[in-house]
């Protein structure tokens, strides 16, 4: 919408539009100049008449009312209550664009978050303050995984408060209902804040949703000292909304039509995770994105991968085999795992077991490929054991029920069960003392 005769409007300024019928909508200024302002209306421009529509420039950017009362509430993509309850009473109003975290005051993430999902806790450990995306594909079980993590995630061994901020971006109504029901039925909603932007909501609202969610996450973390896990699903929908608005503004397109500033824009969101020196809380981010055509070189996962600290990749083959969660560990990595596990943090054998599982599964994959050519009869005894270990890894460790919450001891015990199928001499990544303590195979 273009508003004429505007002299003092500012970029990103919030605008209130009043229709002939007295309906009020919100929008924000995208461009100003030559006495005109380009305003993107959050609720869409359908039904707006050229004559009689009134526009009010509010002289402020979009702000989110924040307080502890947000916990247990459900909001729409713009932060308005969506659960039939009144507006939350605000402690303060925060600009949704946030303030950049001073790199000098960032604290290195080193504390473990338990998700209750074996493959993540055991091999791709999430650390408080980390940003670890989940790369998925169309139709795969990323939303089930996201909901499971939201229900189960916890900080083990401390009494510090933990909260989940869940932003559903451009999801279908049924998915939104699933997230809400899942959190309600597990009793996890009381420590969660849910933002739901539906697929049929206007594109501009989709741009705001992660910002609003991260503003709340920052408040809970750095004002109230909570450890916050922010789950953003699906960031592909976000990037597509960004492309739509960029095209409407006639900007020069970059790769696959996405704007040239896609990297900067994604970084603006992803970098709102971390810990701050002298403050108790933390914001940990798990953005979830579905890769178009499972293409990991697509601009969205590609640029995301540059910014985040590792990735959890879901594999189509495992998904087809009916394995949940279908995490392709060979493509996945948590770059901060090494700093968040081990003696005094989780368990002294954690890192070594994780590495050994990588090694064993990688070897199992090679042996599987070899068996396709020469047949099982052509394999050595050790190769056959790796083959068993690979199968066991998928069925006993990777596979778990969406409502199964495994603690770290159980996860590591399952890992040792798999390693028990291998001869002791094959455990080259594990220290002798840990083999003595935990190895269950024939010595």
């Amino acid at each position, binding site marked *: 919408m273009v508003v004429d*005769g505007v002299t003092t409007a500012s970029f990103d300024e919030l605008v209130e539009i009043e229709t002939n019928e007295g309906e009020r909508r919100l929008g924000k200024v995208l461009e100003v100049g030559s006495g005109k302002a380009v305003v993107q209306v959050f609720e869409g421009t359908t039904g707006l008449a050229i004559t009689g529509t*009134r526009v009010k420039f509010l002289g402020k950017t979009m702000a989110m*009312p924040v307080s502890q*009362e947000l916990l*247990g509430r459900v909001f729409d993509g713009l932060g308005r209550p969506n659960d039939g*309850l*009144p*507006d939350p*009473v*605000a*402690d303060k*109003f925060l600009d949704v664009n946030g303030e950049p975290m001073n790199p000098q005051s960032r604290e290195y993430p080193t504390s473990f978050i338990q998700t209750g999902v074996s493959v993540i806790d055991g091999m791709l450990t999430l650390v408080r303050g980390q940003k670890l995306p989940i790369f998925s594909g169309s139709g795969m079980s990323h939303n089930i995984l996201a909901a499971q993590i939201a229900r189960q995630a916890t900080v083990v061994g401390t009494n510090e408060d933990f909260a989940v901020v869940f932003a559903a971006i451009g999801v279908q109504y049924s998915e939104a209902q699933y997230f809400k029901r899942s959190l*309600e*039925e*597990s*009793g*996890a*909603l*009381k420590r969660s804040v849910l933002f739901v932007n539906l697929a049929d909501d206007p594109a501009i609202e989709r741009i705001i949703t992660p910002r609003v969610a991260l503003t709340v996450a920052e408040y809970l973390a750095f004002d109230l000292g909570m450890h916050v896990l922010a789950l953003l699903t699906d960031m592909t929908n976000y990037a597509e909304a960004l492309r739509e608005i960029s095209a409407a503004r006639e900007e020069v397109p970059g790769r696959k039509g996405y704007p040239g500033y896609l990297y900067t824009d994604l970084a603006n969101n992803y970098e709102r995770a971390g810990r701050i020196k002298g403050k108790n809380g933390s914001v940990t981010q798990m953005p979830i994105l579905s890769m178009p055509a499972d293409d990991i070189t697509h601009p969205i996962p590609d640029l995301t991968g540059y910014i985040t600290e590792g990735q959890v990749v879901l594999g189509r083959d495992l998904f087809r085999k009916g394995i949940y969660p279908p995490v392709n560990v060979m493509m996945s990595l948590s770059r901060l795992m090494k700093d968040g596990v081990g003696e005094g943090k989780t368990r002294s054998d954690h890192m070594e077991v994780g590495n050994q599982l990588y090694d064993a599964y990688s070897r199992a994959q090679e042996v599987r490929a070899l068996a396709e050519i020469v047949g099982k009869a052509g394999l050595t005894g050790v190769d056959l054991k790796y083959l068993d270990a690979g199968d066991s890894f998928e069925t006993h460790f990777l596979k778990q029920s969406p409502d199964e*919450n495994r603690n770290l001891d159980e996860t590591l015990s399952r890992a040792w069960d798999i390693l028990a199928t291998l001869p002791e001499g094959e455990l080259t990544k594990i220290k002798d003392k840990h083999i003595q303590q935990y190895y269950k195979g024939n010595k």
Partner: protein
Amino acid sequence: MSLNSLERTIDKVLSQKESTLISEIDSALQNSLKNLESSKSSLQVEYDSIIESSKKQAENLKRQIIGSSTLNARNKELVIIESAIDEIFIMAKEKLAKSNNEKNYEKLLTRLIQDSSAKLGSEIVIQCNKTDLNLVKKLVSQESSNRKSKITVSNEVVDIIGGIKAASVDGTMSLDNTLDSNIETLKPLIRKRIVQLLRGENK
């Protein structure tokens, strides 16, 4: 073969068969006992796992019930507080509507007229409620002579509790400087204070 040797052979076969059968029965018994023993331990494992999973389910259920009850109670509290806030606002508005005789109100109206004129330009049209009409006319005439601005007071009254609505002469720009609108703007801050008072918090 003599009858005796035949009987001996038969006896021998029978005795061999008997011992084989006895040993097979023994071994079957041993196997059964072993199976029973191993079943016991596997049953124990099964039993333990059922108990363990039941405990987990019970724990989940407990967490779920406590979580949803706490949340429901909190949500009911929010609804009650909100209705109290609404009542307080209604009472406050009624009180404000009756306060147009006070000296402060005259000052406030003067400030609102000046503010509207500063924002929309020197030529503006002002609307107010029926009760304030004469007062606004008086204040506008004072203001017009002081500032040499052309402010018109419309005889079309509006249904507001106080304050004024201003618009540019061509109607393209308008400014809602009513008490209703100012209350709405300040509502989030006022609500916070009301909630603090209701909850006995003294911040």
